[in-house]
C-alpha cells in the first residue's frame, strides 16, 4: 500500500477562479414567508377592526428594509479548491480546502461546494455562510472518504445574500477538480506458472526453449547447434552426440481479463482490487502485462512493462464499472485471434456467474492458454439475515462449488471467500 502511495509524485491539485457576481435581487422563500406573515397580520388587524395596531408589523418591515439596504448589486470574489493530490487509495480520508477571498467587504456570502456522488462527507460541512472583510482570505475545510472511481468536482455555488438571507443572487461557477480513487492493493503471491508444474515466486522461466542460464533437459545434437552446448558426459554414456537445452530467461506476457458484468456487482470492488494487486505483483516481478476490461465497450491495453504502464492500467481499473455487458466470450475470442500474445499467461478475474463468462474461460483454455481464474465468491459477501437466507446461501454455494469443479479442467480456479485476504485464497489453491 505504502509503495503505491509514494510512487505518486506530490502534486498539489488546485483550481482557482476569480468571479464577478452580478445579478438582480431575488427574494428567497424566507422573504416570501415573512411578507405573507406581514400581510396576514395587516388583514387580521382590519378583520378585528383594530387597524391602528397595524404598526405591530414595523419590526418586520424594518428588517426587510435593512436587508435591502445592505444588499450590493455586484461583488468580486476569488475561489480556489485545494486537494493534496488527485489520486488516492480507496478508503483514504482526504481534506478538501476551499479558499475564498474578496477585495471588498461582503456581509453575507453563502458558499456551497459540489460533492461528487461517490464521495462521502466524513466531517465538516459543504455549505457555509461567510462574512468577508476587505482582503480577507477564508479557508473552508471538510473531509471526505474516497471510494474507487473517478470523482469530479464541477462547480462551486456562490450565493450573495443580505445578512438575514431574505434576498439573494446565486451563481454556480465552474471550478473543476478531479479525485481518482485507485483500488486498494494488497501483497499477493504469484498464482501462475509458465508450465503449470511449478508455482514460482519471483522471476518466471518461459516455456520457449532457447539460450539462457537455466538448464532444462538433454537431447540429441541437431545440426546447427553450437558446439559449446554439447554435453560430453552424456555423449560418452549414450554413444550419441547429446546437447544441453536451456530455458530462456525471457518472461511470459501476462494478460489480465476482467469480467465487468453487472451480475458480479456485489464483488466487483474485490475483483478490481485483486486485478490491481496482481498487476503490482507482475510489476515487481518485471513481467510484462496487459489488460482486457470486458465492459460493454471492451478496453484493451497491450502488454507492456514499467510503472507508467502500471499506472495507466490502474487508472482504467479505477474507472471500471459493472455494466450490462454480456459479450465477454465474443470479446475474448476476438482478442485472442487478433491481439493476445501467443503463449501468454491469462489471469481471468470473474465471479463466473454468467454463462458467457464461463464460455469465455472455455475459449481461453481451448486456445491453449494457461489460465488462472480468480473468482470472488459473491455468496460470501452477503451476511444472511434469517435462517432461510442462510440455507439459500448454502445451496447457492453448493451449486457454485459443483460448477467450479466442472470448470476446473480449463485452468486453476481460485474460489475466493472475500471475507479472507486474497493471498490466503491464492495460497490455499496453489499450495504456497
Amino acid at each position, binding site marked *: 500500500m505504502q509503495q503505491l502511495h509514494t510512487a505518486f509524485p506530490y502534486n498539489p491539485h488546485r483550481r482557482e477562479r476569480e468571479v464577478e457576481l452580478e445579478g438582480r*435581487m431575488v*427574494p428567497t422563500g*424566507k*422573504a416570501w*414567508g*415573512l*411578507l*405573507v*406573515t*406581514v400581510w*396576514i*397580520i*395587516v388583514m*387580521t*388587524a382590519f378583520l*378585528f377592526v*383594530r*387597524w*391602528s*395596531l*397595524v*404598526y*405591530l*408589523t*414595523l*419590526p*418586520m*418591515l*424594518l*428588517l*426587510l*428594509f*435593512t*436587508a435591502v439596504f*445592505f444588499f450590493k448589486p455586484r461583488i468580486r470574489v476569488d475561489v480556489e479548491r485545494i486537494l493534496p493530490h488527485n489520486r488516492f487509495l480507496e478508503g483514504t480520508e482526504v481534506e478538501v480546502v476551499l479558499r475564498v477571498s474578496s477585495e471588498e467587504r461582503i*456581509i*453575507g456570502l*453563502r458558499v456551497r461546494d459540489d460533492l461528487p456522488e461517490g464521495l462521502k462527507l466524513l466531517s465538516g460541512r459543504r455549505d*457555509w*455562510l*461567510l*462574512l468577508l472583510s476587505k482582503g480577507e482570505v477564508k479557508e473552508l475545510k471538510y473531509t471526505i472518504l474516497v471510494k474507487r472511481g473517478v470523482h469530479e468536482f464541477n462547480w462551486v455555488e456562490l450565493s450573495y445574500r443580505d*445578512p*438575514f*438571507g431574505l*434576498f439573494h443572487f446565486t451563481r454556480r461557477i465552474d471550478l473543476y477538480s478531479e479525485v481518482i480513487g485507485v483500488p486498494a492493493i494488497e501483497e499477493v503471491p504469484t498464482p501462475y506458472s509458465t508450465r503449470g508444474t511449478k508455482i514460482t515466486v519471483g522471476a518466471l522461466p518461459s516455456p520457449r526453449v532457447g539460450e539462457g542460464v537455466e538448464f532444462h533437459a538433454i537431447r540429441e545434437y541437431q545440426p546447427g547447434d553450437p558446439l559449446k552446448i554439447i554435453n560430453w558426459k552424456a555423449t560418452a554414456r549414450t554413444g550419441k552426440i547429446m546437447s544441453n537445452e536451456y530455458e530462456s530467461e525471457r518472461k511470459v506476457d501476462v494478460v489480465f481479463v476482467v469480467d465487468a458484468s453487472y451480475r458480479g456487482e456485489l464483488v466487483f470492488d474485490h475483483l478490481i482490487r485483486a486485478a490491481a494487486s496482481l498487476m503490482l505483483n507482475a510489476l515487481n516481478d518485471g513481467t510484462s502485462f496487459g489488460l482486457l476490461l470486458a465492459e460493454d465497450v471492451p478496453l484493451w491495453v497491450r502488454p507492456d512493462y514499467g510503472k507508467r504502464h502500471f499506472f495507466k492500467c490502474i487508472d482504467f481499473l479505477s474507472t471500471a464499472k459493472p455494466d450490462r455487458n454480456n459479450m465477454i466470450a465474443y470479446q475474448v475470442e476476438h482478442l485472442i485471434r487478433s491481439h493476445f500474445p501467443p503463449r501468454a499467461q491469462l489471469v481471468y478475474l470473474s465471479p463466473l456467474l454468467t454463462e458467457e463468462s464461463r464460455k469465455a474461460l472455455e475459449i481461453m483454455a481451448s486456445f491453449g492458454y494457461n489460465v488462472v481464474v480468480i473468482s470472488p465468491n459473491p455468496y460470501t459477501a452477503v451476511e444472511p439475515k434469517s435462517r432461510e437466507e442462510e440455507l439459500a446461501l448454502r445451496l447457492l454455494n453448493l451449486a457454485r462449488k459443483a460448477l467450479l469443479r466442472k470448470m476446473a479442467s480449463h485452468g486453476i480456479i481460485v474460489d475466493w471467500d472475500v471475507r479472507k485476504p486474497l493471498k490466503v485464497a491464492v495460497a490455499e489453491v496453489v499450495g504456497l
Partner: protein
Amino acid sequence: MKLKRRFYSLIFLALLFILLAELSPWTLVLLPVGLLALQWYSMGLILLFSVSLYLIYHRIGGIYGLGVVSLALLTAEAAYLDRNEAPKEHYLVLLGAVLLTYPIYTLMVLSAGFTPRLEATGIAALFLVVLYLFLKLVAD
C-alpha cells in the same frame, strides 16, 4: 453528546415568554411552537403570527406590544442565523434593524398627536400602499 449548533435564539425566546407570561399564563401554550421555531423558520413565522393575533385580539399595542412582536421576530431570525453559524456581526445587524422600530414608533406617536383621526386613517392607508409597492418592487 455535543450539540453542533448555537442557541443564541433561546435568549430571545426566554425573554418573549417572560413578557407573555405577564399577560396571561395561557400564552405558555405557544411554548412548543417557540421551541420548534428554533429548528424551522416556518414555525418561527407561525409563532410570530400567533403572538400578533393574540395582541391584536386583546388590543395590546404600544411599546409592550412591539416588544413582544420584536422578540418573536428575533427568535425566528436568530434561530436562522444559529442554524447557519452566521458571523456574530449578523446578530448585531439583526438587533439594530429591530431596535430601529422604537424611534420610528416614537416618531409616529408624536406625530399622531398633531394629526386629526381622518388623516391618521389616510396615513395608515398610505402605509398599506407603500407596503404594496414594496412587495411589487421585490416581486418584479
